[in-house]
């Protein structure tokens, strides 16, 4: 109910704002126009702008870049978290590369991968890699010594300590990294597609709608981006709830 009220207030304000101050379909579109357009594009009433197909393309770019970031970020993060010398060794490089916005990598990405899915995935990879890496390092390196010692005196070998103590103890931090990374990755999808790495995708179609000056289509695609992003975040939250069941009651959330 709260959810619906919040959205209703937002849409009504937008509608009023449009009619009072803009009132020009060339500049902005009101929700009374956008929502019907959105539904039509969802159902495939337009050949060029078909939201489900573009969503799939964007999700492909997202999954491609995100999975590469997840596998490399996690493994590098685990090693760096466990071995202080390695952590100190990679730290300056990480700190140098981390502040460079993923968007700044777009020219290099296009040079390296041309206009391909990989070019888009590369930008998403850059965006997702650092949050996963940093949070994994933080999680692993801050596992309390007492848990490791307790496990050892209870007969755990190095392997057990890693899988039964280090991993579960650092999982909350790793999950935080994954969720931040997912949010950044989804933003990068749009940025990467704006540069026309493929002829499909939510970001690309926003750009296309701008050329056609169809503000209602443009905003419908923006809504789609918001909805998919929200769904992704819900997905990771539910995963987190499932794997971090033990945290319930331990934190204020």
């Amino acid at each position, binding site marked *: 109910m709260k959810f619906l009220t919040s959205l209703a207030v937002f849409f009504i304000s937008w509608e009023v704002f449009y009619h009072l101050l803009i009132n020009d379909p060339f500049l902005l579109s009101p929700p009374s126009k956008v929502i019907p357009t959105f539904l039509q594009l969802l159902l495939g009433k337009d050949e060029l702008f078909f939201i489900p197909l573009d969503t799939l393309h964007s999700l492909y770019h997202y999954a491609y870049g995100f999975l590469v970031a997840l596998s490399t970020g996690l493994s590098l993060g685990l090693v760096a978290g466990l071995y202080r010398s390695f952590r100190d060794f990679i730290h300056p490089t990480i700190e140098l590369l981390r502040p460079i916005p993923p968007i700044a990598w777009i020219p290099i990405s296009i040079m390296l991968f041309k206009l391909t899915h990989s070019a888009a995935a590369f930008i998403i990879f850059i965006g997702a890699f650092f949050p996963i890496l940093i949070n994994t390092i933080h999680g692993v390196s801050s596992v309390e010594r*007492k*848990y490791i*010692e*307790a*496990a*050892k*005196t*209870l*007969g*755990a*070998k190095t392997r*057990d300590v890693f899988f*039964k*103590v280090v991993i*579960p*103890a650092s*999982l909350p931090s790793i999950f935080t990294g994954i969720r931040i990374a997912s949010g950044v990755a989804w933003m990068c999808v749009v940025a990467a597609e704006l540069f026309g790495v493929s002829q499909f995708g939510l970001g690309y179609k926003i750009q296309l709608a701008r050329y056609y000056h169809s503000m209602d289509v443009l905003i419908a695609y923006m809504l789609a981006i918001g909805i998919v992003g929200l769904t992704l975040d819900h997905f990771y939250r539910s995963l987190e709830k499932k794997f*971090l069941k*033990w945290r319930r*009651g*331990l934190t204020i959330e």
Partner: protein
Amino acid sequence: MSDVLVVKNLYKRFGEVLVLDGISFNVKEGEFVSILGPSGCGKTTLLRIIAGLEDYEGEVLLENKLVNSPGQDRVMVFQDYALFPWKTVFENISFGLEVKKFPKKVIKERTEKILKLVGLQGFENFYPHEISGGMKQRVALARAIICEPRILLMDEPLSALDAQTRNYMQEELIRIWKEINCTILYVTHSIEEAIFLSDRIVVLTKRPAKVKKIVNVNLERPRDRFSNEFVRLKAEIHKDVKDEFELV
């Protein structure tokens, strides 16, 4: 009775600081021995060395074998329990069996037996943060004794509990010790606790710790904290260690 643990001329330095200055004592099979000393004297370090968590100079022998790494034959119960917050009570207790790859059925049977022994039935599926301090202590104890160690090392395990729970847990500990017939080395800074629990008390000096004296506690069990002999012994030990405690 044969010696389970022998500590001979044990020295420990942290950098330049000498912490343990030639400690020697032994623990016999089935015995309950306490190490009594002022806080900061190195009691915990001594226990950690025996657990295999610290290196040292000298000799620490468990059944004639030199101690040099942690193992299930010397399980330690930590002062702040160190229960795994991501594991339930059941999973915490069965950890030692799990890493030894016992079959699921055996793990279940033995864990249930221990749950009953320490009085935790019905709490198997709770997480550590959902149970009280006294219950956490029971889980920590259960998790250690399920490994059937040759010697159980306990580092001020009751110090975080309130006075009533603490007295009750001391009685419980004695009950469990008798029931499973194990050998316990117990670190405490409380004279009363040491007398209530132990067969012998190893009294340490302040840092660098030496053995000041070893007291035999020849009181019948169950012990009465208010009996004349108990109080007399308490006063006697108190006089002995007064200087050590006051200066800390």
